[in-house]
């Protein structure tokens, strides 16, 4: 992905200085505050409306500079930064607590898959839209009968010459009701389980697509059942070869798992003990729990840094994202258990103004999905055992 060749340390120092200056000039103070609400996160898309002028100006500045996707090539809307510069940019953004200018499934999941499997036209077209935040994507993998056993999926694409006609149902489709397009796993050959799936892209506004939100234990409805009723998908909207969508799907899952593992880092909460000093002081056993947890968090942060460096240098095991996802999500669930404990009865309030409409308990409940979405912890452990440890099959 890198366009610039590795450079001597002096050039990197210069890049760091430039980056600081640029961030100083372009990242508004409001965009350096912790994310409070869902709409503090900029998702982009056709229907997006910016929450504040600061959110818009930060977004615009980053799009212009290619910094929504800094390591993508310039031709596809990125900044073409190499691994060392990407790391510096991330460090400098973290230093001032800059929010991500744009968050999306396009950046985290579809983009990497397109970079790997897409045609040149697809890259220019779809990656550019993603980088500029024009199209918001959702992921159509899971079905009622195909969860962990994803390859059993039944949604079928009938060949009609220059297009497919897709029928079936997806479930747990995050943000399906807000998304513009879907990347979707569709069976195109009923006789071959693995080599009978194709990776299709289509517009959620197409005739025959409908969604129905599902209410979660957190009370929110971020995901949907998604129905396809004779949806027409033109033949050029396939990624990779016909019936070889499973390869694309798995590659994308690696990136999804890496992204989800990021929750383990704790965002702005580098240390849980530092965030709850009074509680730690009042309760020595809780302080011990915090301290043990902080050890694990800081160690996992080092792992996350190492993981990126290993992958970029080609040293990482290709199945390592599964380990990251397992460790990161289990850590994040533990964090939120501790956050609830630290809050005592305050943390139980569900809809009072003081509790910010129950932000803490809702957030805690949300984290329980971390070890389910994108592949469960048990499935991660299966994959690690088989692919990394090469333990025998039954």
């Amino acid at each position, binding site marked *: 992905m890198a366009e610039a060749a590795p450079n001597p340390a002096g050039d990197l120092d210069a890049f760091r200085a430039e980056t600081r200056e640029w961030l100083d000039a372009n990242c508004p103070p409001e965009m350096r505050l912790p994310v409070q609400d869902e709409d503090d996160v900029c998702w982009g898309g056709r229907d997006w409306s910016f929450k504040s002028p600061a959110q818009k100006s930060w977004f615009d500045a980053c799009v212009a500079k290619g910094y929504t996707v800094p390591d993508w090539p310039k031709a596809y809307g990125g900044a073409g930064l190499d691994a060392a510069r990407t790391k510096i940019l991330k460090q400098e953004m973290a230093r001032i607590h800059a929010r991500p200018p744009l968050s999306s499934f396009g950046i985290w999941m579809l983009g990497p898959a397109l970079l790997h499997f897409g045609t040149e036209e697809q890259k220019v077209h779809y990656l550019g839209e993603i980088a500029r935040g024009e199209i918001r994507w959702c992921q159509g993998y899971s079905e009622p009968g195909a969860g962990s056993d994803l390859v059993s999926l039944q949604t079928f694409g009938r060949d009609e010459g220059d297009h497919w006609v897709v029928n079936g149902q997806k479930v747990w489709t995050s943000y399906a009701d807000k998304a513009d397009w879907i990347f979707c796993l569709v069976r195109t050959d009923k006789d071959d389980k693995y080599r009978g799936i194709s990776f299709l892209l289509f517009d959620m506004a197409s005739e025959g697509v409908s969604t129905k939100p599902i209410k979660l234990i957190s009370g929110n409805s971020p995901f949907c059942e998604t129905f396809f009723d004779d949806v027409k998908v033109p033949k050029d909207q396939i990624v990779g070869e016909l019936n070889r969508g499973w390869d694309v799907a798995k590659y994308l899952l690696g990136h999804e798992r890496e992204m989800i593992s990021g929750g383990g880092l704790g965002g702005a909460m580098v240390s849980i003990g530092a965030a709850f000093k009074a509680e730690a002081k009042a309760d020595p056993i809780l302080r011990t729990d915090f301290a043990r947890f902080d050890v694990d968090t*800081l160690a996992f942060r080092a792992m996350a840094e190492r993981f990126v460096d290993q992958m970029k240098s080609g040293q990482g095991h290709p199945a390592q994202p599964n380990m990251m996802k397992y460790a990161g999500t289990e850590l994040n669930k533990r964090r939120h258990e501790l956050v609830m404990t630290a809050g005592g009865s305050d943390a139980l309030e569900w809809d009072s103004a003081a509790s910010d409409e129950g932000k803490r308990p809702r957030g805690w409940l949300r984290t329980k999905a971390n070890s389910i979405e994108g592949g469960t912890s048990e499935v991660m452990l299966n994959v690690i055992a088989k692919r990394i440890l090469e333990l025998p099959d039954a």
Partner: protein
Amino acid sequence: MPLILDDDQTMLRDTAHEFMMGEGSIAKQLRHWRDMQCKDGFGHDLWRQFGEMGFAGMLASEADGGLGMGAVEAGVVMEEIGRNLTPSPFLSTAIVGVTALAAADDDARARWLPGIVEGRTILGIAIDEGARHDPSNIAMTATKSGNGFKLDGRKRAVLQGASADALIVVARTSGAAGDTQGLTVFAVPTDAAGLSRDAVRLVDSSMAAHCDFDGVEVDGGSVIGDVDNGWAVVSKMLAAGRAGAASEAVGVGGGAMDITFEYLKGRKQFGRHIGSFQALQHRAAHLYSEIEIARAAVLKACQLIDENADNAELMVSVAKAKAGDAANLAVREGVQMHGGVGMTDEYDIGLYMKRDRALAEYFGDGRYHANRVAELLGY
């Protein structure tokens, strides 16, 4: 700096790996010396080979005849030592001792370093006085006497204390036990009058010594660093020792993990490989991820030491705690997954369990360091 080994460090790892697997193997070293009840717990020939390979002097500056390497390189060697349970005075001498001597004057360096670099001289580290690590809780006194000092007190379980030519001793020149101020570091030859050593064999067959100082006279030249401000030196010794022990723990844990996974692939019950049972696969996969995370934390800590970074101390404590947890998990799971043979002396897995136990105590266990992490993070 990327959090991976660079080309030179990778080469060093390969060299150390091959050497420890060969010359440093469990059969050739640990079992050999243990079975003959060796009074030192390691082989002096191997230590001389450490000298020839450049390991013994790797942290000494080039001016002192060493290689001028850093904590990352020392950690690379320690991990391979841990993997093969190779008994040697590398941690006490080449890491902690040499780190202390870096602060010593020319005469003291000239006296001790050439022998260390060649793999002849051995240093013992005499900090703790109680059975649990508490490095500022030092009661041993060093009182002015002529142009030198007179040392009185007792040090417990001194690492390599039995075989050492000299001890790096932390004593109190002022203040009270618990103060970090008022400490002074000395290099004390073990043949000094008034020093008696009581050698003890530990669970992992390594040898330590309880050391009694009864009016031990040392000259002014044996002071390392500044009188009363020894904590600056002690801090560096502790950081180096903790990072080294944490690296060794990753090796011990990684080694225990590897032989256990081999066992899972070989042993059959119920007509199938036990490694095909999901109950074991999941625990194996969890163990793998813990060891990976520990290795990342340790490498990060070593890099921060070498960069002289402000947060090095924090990350060193994270590394020692995390590596201890991961290695402990590895040896416990290792013995359990071996079944009955895991309890036999014939199989190596039990040796890993014993080494892990000893290593956990060196320079503070997981609880000690979790507490340090909390203090350093301000709670």
